[in-house]
C-alpha cells in the first residue's frame, strides 16, 4: 500500500526523523492559512498524489511570499498532474502540502528496501540526491553506498555511520544523519514497510540533516497488525476495479489492450497474457481468479473485465486441478447467463475432467467458442478481437 508524502512525514515525526514544518491542506484558502503559521519567508507548495515525478510535472513550487503561496496553490490545487508515473491521463490534485522552505547545502538520497537475495533490509544512500536512484545505479553504481541489516539483529549504529561518512558528511552532520538513519530503520521494521525513500535527504546551511521528501510503501500482508497505517489508504489513488476485485478474492490489474483474460493462478495468468501477445493480440487485463474459481467469483470477474470499454473479446483459461473442470464449466455457464456478455467469449479448459467440462459448455446452447489448447484459444480470441471469425 502506498501513502501520501504528508502522511509519510507524519510517521517520520513519530519516529523522530526530522522533516520541515508543514501542513496538509485541501483548498487554496487553507493553504494560505497554513503558510501564515509557518515561519517563512520561503514556502513550498507540493501536490499530494501517489505518483513520483511531481516536480517536473509542475506540482511542486517554491513561494517567496504569502501571495505567491496563494498563486501556486491556485495553480496546483485541482490541476491534473501528469508525470511519468501517472500515465497519460494524469491525476487530479485533491490535497496539498504547504511547507517551510530551507537553505539547502547538499541534496542526498536515502532508501531502504527488503532485499530478496540476501533476505535482509538493505539501506542505500547516494550523493546524487534528487536523481532517480535506478539511473544512478545504472550509470554510476560506485556512487551508491549499501549496508545490510539482518532483521533479527537490526541495523547497527556503525553501519549508519558508514553511510553518513560515506556521503562525505562532517562531524555534526554525520551525527544527525546517523540518528536519522537509525530511526528510519526502526520505523521500517516497526511498521512493516516494504520501501522507504527520502529523495532528497538534505543537509542545510546550518548543518541540519532532514527529509525533504518522503515515500513510504507498506507490505499489504502485514496491514492487519497496523490498523492506524491501514487507515491512511486513499481510495482516490486506487483503481476502483482493482479494489473491488480484491474484496472478492480476485487479483485484477487493468492494462491497455482489448482482450480480457480470466485465468486461475497468477503465473498462468501472466503466461496467458504472453501467449495472446505472441499471436498478435494485446491483453486488456491481468486477472487471477485464484485456485478455487467458483461461479460467484467467475461472474464477478466477468463483470469487472466487461466494465473496461476497450474489451472486445474474452479468453477464459482454466487449468482444473483439485477444482475440477466440470465444476468450473458450471460456474462459467451460470456466470455467462447472469452477466450479459456482449463480446465473443473463448473458453479453454484443461486438466482434471476437462472432457466433461468442454462437453457441458458445448451443450449449454451459449455462444461460447471452445479451444482445446491455450495456443488455439489465444489464436481464436485474437482473431475475434480483430473482427474475424474464429
Amino acid at each position, binding site marked *: 500500500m502506498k501513502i501520501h508524502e504528508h502522511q509519510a512525514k507524519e510517521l517520520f515525526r513519530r519516529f523522530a526523523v526530522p522533516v520541515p514544518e508543514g501542513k496538509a491542506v485541501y483548498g487554496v484558502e487553507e493553504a494560505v492559512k497554513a503558510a501564515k503559521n509557518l515561519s517563512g519567508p520561503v514556502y513550498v507548495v507540493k501536490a499530494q498524489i501517489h505518483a513520483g515525478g511531481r516536480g517536473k510535472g509542475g506540482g511542486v513550487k517554491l513561494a517567496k511570499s504569502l501571495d505567491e503561496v496563494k498563486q501556486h496553490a491556485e495553480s496546483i490545487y485541482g490541476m491534473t498532474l501528469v508525470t511519468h508515473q501517472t500515465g497519460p491521463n494524469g491525476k487530479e490534485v485533491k490535497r496539498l502540502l504547504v511547507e517551510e522552505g530551507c537553505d539547502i547545502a547538499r541534496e542526498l538520497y536515502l532508501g531502504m528496501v527488503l532485499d*530478496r537475495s540476501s*533476505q535482509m533490509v538493505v539501506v542505500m544512500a547516494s550523493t546524487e540526491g534528487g536523481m532517480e536512484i535506478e539511473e544512478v545505479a545504472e550509470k554510476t553504481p560506485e556512487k551508491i553506498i549499501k549496508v545490510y541489516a539482518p532483521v533479527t539483529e537490526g541495523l547497527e549504529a556503525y553501519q549508519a555511520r558508514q553511510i553518513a561518512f560515506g556521503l562525505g558528511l562532517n562531524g555534526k552532520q554525520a551525527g544527525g544523519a546517523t540518528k536519522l538513519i537509525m530511526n528510519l530503520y526502526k520505523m521500517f521494521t516497526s511498521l512493516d514497510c516494504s520501501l522507504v525513500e527520502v529523495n532528497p535527504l538534505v543537509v542545510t546551511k546550518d548543518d541540519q540533516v532532514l527529509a525533504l521528501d518522503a515515500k513510504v510503501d507498506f507490505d499489504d500482508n502485514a496491514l492487519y*497488525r497496523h490498523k492506524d497505517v491501514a487507515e491512511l489508504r486513499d481510495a482516490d489513488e486506487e483503481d476502483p476495479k482493482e479494489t473491488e476485485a480484491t474484496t472478492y478474492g480476485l487479483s485484477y490489474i487493468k492494462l491497455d489492450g482489448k482482450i480480457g483474460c480470466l485465468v*486461475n493462478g497468477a503465473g498462468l495468468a501472466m503466461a496467458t*497474457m504472453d*501467449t495472446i501477445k505472441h499471436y498478435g493480440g494485446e491483453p486488456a487485463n*491481468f486477472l487471477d481468479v485464484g485456485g478455487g474459481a467458483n461461479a460467484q467469483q467467475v461472474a464477478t470477474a466477468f463483470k469487472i473485465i466487461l466494465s473496461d470499454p476497450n474489451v472486445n473479446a474474452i479468453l477464459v483459461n482454466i487449468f482444473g486441478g483439485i477444482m475440477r473442470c466440470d465444476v468450473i464449466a458450471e460456474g462459467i455457464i451460470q456466470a455467462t447467463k447472469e452477466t450479459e456478455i456482449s463480446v465473443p467469449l473463448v473458453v479453454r479448459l484443461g486438466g482434471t475432467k476437462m472432457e466433461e467440462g468442454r462437453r457441458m459448455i458445448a451443450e449449454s446452447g451459449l455462444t461460447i467458442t471452445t479451444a482445446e489448447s491455450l495456443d488455439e484459444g489465444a489464436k481464436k480470441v485474437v482473431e475475434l478481437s480483430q473482427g474475424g471469425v474464429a
Partner: protein
Amino acid sequence: MSILLDKDTRIVVQGITGKTGQFHTRLMKEYGSRVVAGVTPGKGGGHFEDIPIFDTVEQSVKQAGANASLIFVPPPFAADAILEAADAGAKLIVTITEGIPTLDMARVMDRLDGADLRLIGPNCPGVITPEIGKMGIMPANIHKKGPIGVISRSGTLTYIAVNQLTNLGLGQSTALGIGGDPIIGSSFIDILSLFEEDGETEAVVMIGEIGGEMEEEAAEYIRDNMSKPVVGFIAGQTAPKGKRMGHAGAIISGGKGTAEAKIAKMKECGITVSQLPTQIGATMSKLIGWKQ
C-alpha cells in the same frame, strides 16, 4: 530416488483441523502419502480420521515419528509455525500459506540460517514425488513417475508443465513449486543442486516469472554446475513495470526483474528456453530426444 520427499518421509500437518488442512490431508492420504500426525494447539489427544492430533510439533516428532511438516496455518501465525517445526527437528518444512508478512519471513530465514533442514515456500503448491507421495495441494492425477524434475515459482504453471510432460509420456522424478513470495525458503539453486545429485532425475524444467533476480542467479548456477539438460520458461513477458502481478514477488521494480532480461540470461547460460507456456513439454522431449 527422488528429491525431498521419499518413502521415508513421515508427515505432520500443522493446521490439520482447518478446512484447507482437512481437505488436503484427505487427498494426500488417498494418494498414499504417509501422514502420521496433525498439530492444532489445544486439540491434542483427538484424531482427524485415523490420524492422531497433537498440541505441539515436538510431540508429533517424539510420539508419531514425524520428520517433515506441511503447514496450512493462517498468515499471522505461520512464521511461528515454521520455527516450531524447525525447532522440533523437522528436516523438510513445506509452507502452503499465502499472505505471510515479508518481514516475518525475513526473520524466519534469519533464524534458520545454518539449520539442517529444507524449507519450501511459503505461498507454494508443495512437493510431489509421483507414486511415493505428495505434500501439498497439487492435483496428483496429472503426475506420472519418470525422469524429469520440475521446479517453478507458480502453482498452476507447474501443473500445466507437468500435464504436458505426462501427456508426452515424460514422467517426473519430483515436481515442486518454491513459492510466489519475495522471500522464500528455497531458491531455484537450492533445488537444482538436489536434482543434479539425484540419480533418477535426467533433466529439469525450471519455470520462473518476473521479479527479483533468482532466475538469473539460477542460470549462472546451471552453466557452472549442472550436467543435466534444463528447459526454462519465464512468465510475465507482457507485464507492466511497477505492478504486482498477483504474486507478491512478481513485480518489475527499478527496471530489474523483467522477462526479457531473464530469458536473455538463461539463453546465454545454455538453457533451452520455451517461448510459449504451451511448448514446455515439447521443448523438453525434443531436447532429450524422447520418442513416445
